[in-house]
């Protein structure tokens, strides 16, 4: 299927944030802006060292806060620089105004979001609410699961975001602690291959330069907002095909599927990772590292006769509606595990739960959907928790849902 190439330059032990930093180095970024907040910060620690060691030639700007951090890369990107930025939790919130206009100004900035709980109370464990705050404003959003996937997806993020058909920022989300700080073996490909995979960033006629004196983001008042929002939405829609192209091309160039260290691994779907879904009567859905306890529990439960499977969402924006229908359409019960919450929402469920239910609504025969809110603030979703979720799902194969959403593992709350 692929030509024989030198697949690996070296295998290195690194955590998720370091993997992103290395990918940015491979992408030859021009401007990086930093501001510290755990747990994303190590991306910037690593970048700083890569620059100091002469391995990366980039301007490294330490901002006065996240607002400035995101404003700076937005403008750098508009004049044609490839940029890296990132944040976590409340830092991401502090930058929100600039984060929103990064998307509306169509600046293909790549940001790493080391997912973290929002204050108060202070906590730096994972929770997905921070990244999900931009789900409605036109950022591409992808969740990664391993350091390898973080490395590969970052390269893909530049390629997709900077594509002239897209020109949108990309948030590469990873679970704080569980991935940002967990070391794994990452296969770093030869640099030439990264060059082959990733064309230079070219804004074309949208580049801000004295040779191209355009005005960016003038006031449109009531006149043009509808049209601009629609264009933005269409770009998001076009990103679907560009994502598929990018993953295909990644496979051709690097000789392996993104996110794996194996040379080719099936199934090849950029948007979701299905696991034992074919005959499953209960399918668990989640994003990020929750897939780990899920996979272990599923294997174990299968031995006990439970036909369980998993669908891990990688891309959250654009939302993989068709894939969700395809993989979940024939199952009996879907158990969505949200590492986030949407207080006061329908059924008081998490954001992923709402999206999955909405995506399945048009099916003639809909599976039942249960929501589980778990692992907030960095609490572990244990294998036992997942087993329990599978059992609850199983009980609902033939019985109507009386309690649609469970909080998994709240002290003093039997679930």
């Amino acid at each position, binding site marked *: 299927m692929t030509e024989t190439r030198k697949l690996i330059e070296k295998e290195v032990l690194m955590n998720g944030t370091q993997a992103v930093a290395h990918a940015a180095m491979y992408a*030859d970024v*021009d*401007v990086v*802006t930093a501001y510290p907040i755990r747990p994303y910060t190590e991306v910037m620690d690593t970048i700083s060292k890569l620059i100091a060691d002469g391995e990366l*030639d*980039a*301007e490294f*700007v330490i*901002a*006065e*806060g996240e*607002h*400035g*951090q995101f*404003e*700076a*890369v*937005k*403008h*750098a*990107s*508009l*004049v*044609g*620089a490839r*940029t890296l930025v990132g944040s976590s939790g409340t830092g991401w919130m502090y930058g929100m*105004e*600039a984060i929103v*206009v990064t998307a509306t*100004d169509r600046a293909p900035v790549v940001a790493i979001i080391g997912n973290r709980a929002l204050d108060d109370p202070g906590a730096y464990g994972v929770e997905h609410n921070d990244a999900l705050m931009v789900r409605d404003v036109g950022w591409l959003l992808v969740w990664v699961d391993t350091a390898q996937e973080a490395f590969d997806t970052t390269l893909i993020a530049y390629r997709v975001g900077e594509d002239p058909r897209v020109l949108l920022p990309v948030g590469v989300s990873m679970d704080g602690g569980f991935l940002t700080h967990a070391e794994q073996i990452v296969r770093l490909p030869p640099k030439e291959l990264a060059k082959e995979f990733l064309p*230079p960033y070219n804004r074309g006629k949208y580049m*801000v*330069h*004295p040779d*191209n*004196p*355009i*005005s*960016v*983001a*003038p*006031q*449109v*008042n009531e*006149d*043009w907002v509808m049209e601009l929002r629609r264009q933005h939405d269409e770009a998001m829609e076009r990103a679907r095909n560009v994502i598929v192209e990018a993953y295909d091309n990644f496979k051709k160039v690097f000789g392996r599927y993104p996110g794996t260290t194996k040379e080719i691994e099936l199934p090849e779907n950029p948007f979701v990772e299905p696991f034992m879904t074919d005959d499953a009567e209960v399918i668990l859905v989640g994003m990020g590292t929750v897939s780990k306890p899920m996979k272990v529990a599923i294997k174990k439960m299968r031995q006990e006769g439970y036909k369980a499977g998993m669908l891990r969402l990688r891309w959250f924006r654009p939302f993989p509606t068709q894939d969700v229908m395809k993989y979940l359409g024939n199952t009996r019960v879907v158990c969505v595990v949200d590492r986030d919450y949407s207080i006061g929402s329908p059924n008081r469920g998490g954001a992923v739960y709402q999206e999955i239910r909405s995506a399945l609504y048009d099916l003639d025969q809909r599976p039942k959907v249960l929501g589980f809110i778990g692992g907030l603030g960095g609490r572990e979703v244990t294998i036992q928790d997942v087993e329990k979720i599978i059992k609850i799902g199983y009980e609902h194969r033939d019985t109507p849902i009386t309690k649609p959403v469970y909080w998994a593992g709240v002290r003093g709350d039997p679930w």
Partner: protein
Amino acid sequence: MVEKEREERAYKTIIKTIKDAPLEEFYTSGHRTCQGCESALLMRFLAKSAGPRTIVIGATGCMYVANTTYYTTSWVVPWVHTQLGGSGAAALGTAAALKALMRKGKIKQEPINVIAFCGDLGCADMGLSGVSNAMTYDYNLLIILYDNESSANTDIQETSMTPYGAQTTFSRPGKVRRIMKRRWKKSVVPMIIAGHRTIKYAATMNPAYPLDGLNKIRKALEIGGPTFIHSLDPCPKGWDYDPQFSHELGVLAVETGIWPLYEYIEGKIVYDEPTKSIVEGRTKRKPVREFLEKQGRFSHFTEEDVEYFQRMVDEMYEDWEIPGVMPIKSLNVKIDDN
């Protein structure tokens, strides 16, 4: 190399008389600022001074809302909007990107001016930390504070730049309290120069003195590095006067001593006329009353308020370490008077 070129050009491009000013305009028709808007004039100066190899970044404010209506933008040079508090960071990001792209051979090596402008809120209030951060880097960028002493674009609200006692929609005199704005106006240039040792140039200006202003913008760009200019721009709508008096009010702000004109060049303060004559004692400051009584926003002032205002301005010249600039007096060190 580009740095050196800039240094060599510094001061060589000074405009000697207003007739020598370039004829080309890079901020032209298409804007819809109020009649008599001095901030619009400042925009024109900055574009004229900087010329075509310039990227202008504008924070939200009057000069965004009134200047860049879709399809009728008044900017001939590339122009980019930044959020209200974003000018410092936007200038930093732009300058950093140009530097990286030129160094890495991705775009042509040449000096490109990066100018960000921001109003009261965007520079002195919300955006101050970003502006300050930009001043700590050694990128070539200029930040201009266009100060119309209110948040003019949202209907004249009080800011930290609003003068003592002035009426705004956030500081409206009432039956019990006549003076709602009791804070004295912030001094931004002193704050910038005292806090950012490595900047080479900062200045105050006022569109009533066009040659002075044009040259200050030139100097800031030619000296390079992060530079800062604070311009006091009379605003007929916010200050409540007939638009024909804009220049007159600008001149009065200087002649009464309320708005001293000076430059900070490589560590030294240089006064510009007519402030120079005032500081050196050759001209007497006009009473502040002449400035205050021409504007509706001070119409509620009593004799006592005018006296207070006058006393505060007197102090600037009589009691400060650097007249009109640095409000600190050393007690145990003899300052050499010459």
